[in-house]
């Protein structure tokens, strides 16, 4: 089905309409563009996970295993016992509704089941119906309902219509974290063999090859050499990139989107230019070649396994500490799960900038820091030679990528960098940035083509804020620090706000850095003419 035009898409969205039927009586409809394809069975088999064979969500009858109810009951019970967070979130919600209009999917669809309060109620009602004698007796009056196949379909639809962005939890007076609920619900569906293809294939690739895209070592090296050749053409400086270098001080782990997909590759060029400028003793691994972790969008055990390989590689290469690229959910895994899974890492050193001497005490357990903290520290110590006028063709605003913002409290560093490498930086409205940032609408493994209508709906609030600064200040670049953002924003901008390009923070750093021995630059890293150099290109 073709995607409706922008002026038609939200025509029927009414945020104040109460459906005529009770929510429990409304059956889920699988319309093209609003759900993701089911996982290919071979992917699950390769990873030793349960699968339902070949099926699709729009099938009338899902091929659930005979004992599916038992599996679901056990899965819920296990998690209620294991995760205090989940049990608490199921217990304490008072239905105040503060979260209701904070979800980008609710704002883009008007579907009440996209209100975080009701999203959680989709499972809460089953917990009551299955485990509470009182609720079993009073049924719907006590907010309980029976577990049916339709409930499974509904869970699939709505828990893959939450990007785990956690904007709602900022506004919840109890701090209920809907992302945790979604994570657990996706796990429960996984136990039945239900998962989406787009979120699982990267897991298989990362598991067997080392990154989400399936780039093998020789290919990774070749791609990066292409980027190095472009840098040489643009700056006149030849850069050496160390691969798998044992004994290097720092292991740099980027998201694979940054060395494969447009516009991430320009960001990657920015990293390389920075490292060269500093003479940094670092290495890139062709094995731990992915900072992202799509396991996290499926099942915590998968996430844990993929996370481990980065430390295994750090150990093998005998580096001192790890530097992470501009990746989003990686930082949620690192900041909020790592210590629970593995505890402090004892074979690495506390990250210390070899250039400024700054010791990053807050990373003393995980031994990893974000490249934006690293670069902001360099700029604060005046250790990088910058010419911000080389970004004068750029009027940039900053999208706080959900996970670094809400999971790390990472607000100032990217802004500090942008203000030093660009002369034109503009903020979007206050209720759409920092901890209140709006999701790209495609996070948590939902960045797939078949989901485009829902992505455009969910991304609307963010796009709307960009449109505001685009019209008011002429903003033409949207900077972000997440590879999913960089992959999905071009489509979102193209749809809602044509004329706004998407970039990483370090692409702009790369444009501004003045390298020793460089030639006069006439273009940026995308071969676009610099301001005032239009004639020369």
């Amino acid at each position, binding site marked *: 089905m073709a995607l409706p035009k922008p002026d038609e898409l939200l025509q029927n969205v009414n945020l104040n309409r109460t459906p005529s039927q009770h929510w429990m009586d409304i059956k889920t409809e699988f319309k093209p563009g609003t759900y993701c394809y089911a996982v290919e069975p071979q992917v699950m088999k390769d990873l030793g996970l349960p699968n339902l064979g070949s099926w699709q969500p729009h099938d009338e009858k899902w091929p659930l295993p005979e004992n599916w109810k038992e599996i679901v009951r056990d899965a819920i019970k296990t998690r209620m016992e294991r995760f205090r967070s989940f049990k608490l979130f199921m217990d304490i919600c008072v239905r105040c509704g503060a979260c209701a209009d904070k979800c980008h999917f609710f704002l883009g669809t008007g579907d009440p089941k996209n209100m975080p309060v009701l999203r959680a109620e989709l499972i809460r009602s089953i917990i009551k119906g299955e485990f509470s004698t009182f609720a079993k007796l009073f049924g719907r009056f006590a907010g309980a309902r029976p577990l049916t196949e339709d409930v499974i379909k509904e869970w699939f639809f709505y828990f893959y219509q939450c990007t785990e962005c956690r904007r709602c939890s900022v506004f919840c007076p109890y701090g209920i974290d809907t992302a945790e609920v979604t994570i657990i619900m996706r796990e429960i569906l996984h136990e039945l063999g239900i998962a989406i293809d787009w979120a699982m294939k990267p897991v298989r690739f990362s598991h067997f090859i080392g990154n989400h*895209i399936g780039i093998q070592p020789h290919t990774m090296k070749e791609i990066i050499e*292409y980027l190095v050749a472009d840098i040489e053409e643009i700056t006149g400086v030849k850069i050496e990139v160390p691969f798998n270098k044992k004994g290097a001080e720092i292991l740099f782990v980027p998201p694979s989107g940054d060395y*494969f*997909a*447009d516009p991430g*590759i320009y960001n990657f060029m920015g990293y390389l230019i920075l490292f060269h400028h500093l003479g940094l003793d670092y290495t890139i691994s062709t094995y731990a070649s992915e900072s992202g972790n799509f396991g996290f969008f499926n099942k915590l055990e998968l996430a844990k396994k993929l996370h481990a390989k980065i430390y295994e590689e750090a150990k093998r290469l005998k580096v001192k500490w790890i530097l992470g690229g501009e990746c989003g959910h990686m930082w949620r895994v690192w900041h909020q799960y790592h210590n629970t899974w593995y505890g402090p890492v004892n074979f690495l050193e506390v990250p210390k900038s070899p250039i400024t001497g700054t010791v990053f005490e807050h990373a003393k357990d995980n031994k990893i820091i974000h490249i934006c903290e690293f670069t902001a520290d360099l700029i604060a110590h005046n250790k990088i030679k910058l010419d911000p006028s080389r970004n004068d063709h750029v009027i940039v605003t900053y999208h706080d990528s959900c996970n670094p913002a809400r999971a790390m409290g990472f607000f100032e560093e990217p802004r500090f960098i942008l203000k030093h490498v660009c002369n034109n930086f503009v903020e979007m409205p206050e209720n759409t940035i920092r901890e209140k940032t709006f999701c790209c609408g495609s996070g948590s493994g939902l960045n797939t083509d078949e989901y485009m209508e829902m992505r455009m709906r969910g991304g609307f609030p963010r796009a709307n804020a960009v449109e505001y600064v685009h019209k008011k200040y002429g903003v033409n670049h949207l900077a972000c620090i997440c590879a999913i953002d960089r992959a999905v924003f071009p489509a979102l901008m193209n749809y809602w706000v044509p004329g706004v390009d998407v970039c990483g923070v370090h692409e702009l750093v790369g444009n501004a850095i003045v390298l020793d021995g460089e030639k006069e630059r006439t273009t940026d890293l995308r071969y676009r003419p610099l301001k005032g150099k239009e004639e020369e290109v």
Partner: protein
Amino acid sequence: MPTVEYKGKVFEVDEDGFLQAGLDAWCQEWVEYVKEQEGIQELTEEHWKVINILQDYYKKNGVAPMVRILSKLTGFPLKKIYELFPSGPGKGACKMAGLPKPTGCV
């Protein structure tokens, strides 16, 4: 698994119509089928240049080349690739060449 039938051949495809068995099932009829789907009038040497380069790269690397590398290898700017394959390098050219869809943060 959906299938398509074309000139007496049956192809297993994924939900987006990519050849499920990849290069193993790729043949002349498949190329003609995608040509028709894409609304391409006539396959020129330029089309074949893109297809051959995609397949060679895939055999060597196990992934499709990123767009910038495809441009470099063929000498065609992205705009030209869109002229040749209206659905673009992925859904047009890669599909015709029998390559799978990309995955991850792309």
